[in-house]
């Protein structure tokens, strides 16, 4: 069921509309806001966003499926994004990913049954000098060792 967006969210969306000459241009920032509030962007959210931006729901869907940061399903409470691009791979990014796979029993894209962690493999995060690196939620962690990863897992979620 469509439950609508909260007053606070609506107000923030209106602030975003004021930044652009048309509502369509606000689509990415609006989707970011909705995902932050709801955790993901579900079919109902697509319809609500479409209504606010003056678009058809399919136009919202075609945009949100293009960008890897938008999620159409709930993620775990902590999203673990491991960079395995070349610079991080040279410095052990693959070992970090394998360690997380084994420790959490997950393949990239999956969420632990208790809903704590979702594991994702990502492309370059622009922190190649301090690789291997991993984002936990919004926070970037650099120069990781397997011990540091274990510590992060213990302290997260």
């Amino acid at each position: 069921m469509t439950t609508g967006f909260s007053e606070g969210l609506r107000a923030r969306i209106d602030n975003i509309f004021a930044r652009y000459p048309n509502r369509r241009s606000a689509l990415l920032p609006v989707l970011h806001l909705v995902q932050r509030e709801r955790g993901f962007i579900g079919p109902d959210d697509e319809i609500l966003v479409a209504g606010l931006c003056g678009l058809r729901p399919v136009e919202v869907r075609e945009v949100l499926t293009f960008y890897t940061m938008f999620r159409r399903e709930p993620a775990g409470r902590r999203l673990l994004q491991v960079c395995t691009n070349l610079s991080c791979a040279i410095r052990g990014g693959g070992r970090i990913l394998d360690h997380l796979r084994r420790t959490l029993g997950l393949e990239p894209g999956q969420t632990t049954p208790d809903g704590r962690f979702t594991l994702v493999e990502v492309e370059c995060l622009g922190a190649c000098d301090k690789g291997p690196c991993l984002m936990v939620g919004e926070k970037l962690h650099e120069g990781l060792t397997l011990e540091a990863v274990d510590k992060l897992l213990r302290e997260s979620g």
Partner: protein
Amino acid sequence: MAEKYLTRSFDPAGPRSFKTYADTGGYSGARKALAEMTPAMVMGEVKAAHLRGRGGAGFPAGLKWGFIPQASPAPKYLCVNADEGEPGTFKDRYILAHDPHLLLEGVVIVSYAVGIHKAYVYVRGEYEELARRLEEAISEAVSQGALGENIFGSGFSLNVLVHRGAGAYICGEETALLESLEGYRGQPRLKPPFPASVGLFGNSTVINNVETLANLPGIILHGADWFLGLGKPKDGGTRLYSVSGSVVKPGVYELPTGTSLREIIFTHAGGLAPGRTLKAVIPGGLSSAILLPGEIDVAMDCDSLAAAGSMIGSAGIIVIDDGVSMKTVLDRVTKFYAHESCGQCTPCRVGTSWIRRIVRRMNGGGRRADDLDRIARLAEAMKGRTFCPFGDAAALPVLALIGKFRTELEG
């Protein structure tokens, strides 16, 4: 002369505030431009400085601005390309993290020169924290009269807004960036028309990289001759070289344009770890052709790298040691392009994913005798046959890897 300009006062503790920036001479380039120079003088100075774009294409910035029709009464836009996504590149992150006002001062200068009153900074989605800090820096600058209405009492006004991407490498391509900013999938536009005539919302638009704009305050304050003196005659200034991979001291190094690749790796980045030897170097981000150890006495500027069969691109230097298998490198490169192809042009959409499937099969033990030739044919078929440079970017590193490491890849 190893003069540093861009990084001269990077604060490792965090971004410099408006006050610390202004107290050390910050915004005096913008003040000078607004108070003492006409827009044409500013543009002339930047043209004379031979400032070439730092995002990847290396196009002269002053020339690019010159394509904007000046007579038209329609609004013009600036888009700052902060969608740093080229693997091995992290210099714009440094500018945003340490000195956002350096960028904002550059934004004021280009906007004044071209007659722009609205600018969007397109920051890659993953740089969420940096985007927030940049918004704080913008608010600070507005409250101090350095942005917004009537900047420094000059009568010139400029509104700067931050727009975040959402995870798509292709949005660093300038027309994909425009599509993304307008709320569409980031699929590049066919050029011409170029953004200078038909850009954001159909209006004339300048698109410049973060590092490119960060050079403007220095050019205006110290002049084109000073800037040229830092670098090469047709490629002025210093550059931020991002060095990563198998070096002792990875990091961002500000050195003159044209510094030798060998010097950057061995003198500045500390060389390789003891016991390791150099196997190859990717000089300009993942999209550039790989170089052998015998090819690194090359000057890091646009023309010298092109002559060496590669490109300076974003100057993201990835150093590869003898412990790294070229099969891993081929795997990583092809995986990236297959994942990031926007899917619009058939040669790229089919080519990148087909190459990817062959590489997966090869690395899984199912190699066939003609695999590398088949990959090379597919790569050749992408080159020059796509709307945007992504097709070339996906083809050239693969062709260089096959050309230079065929024996190892076949083993």
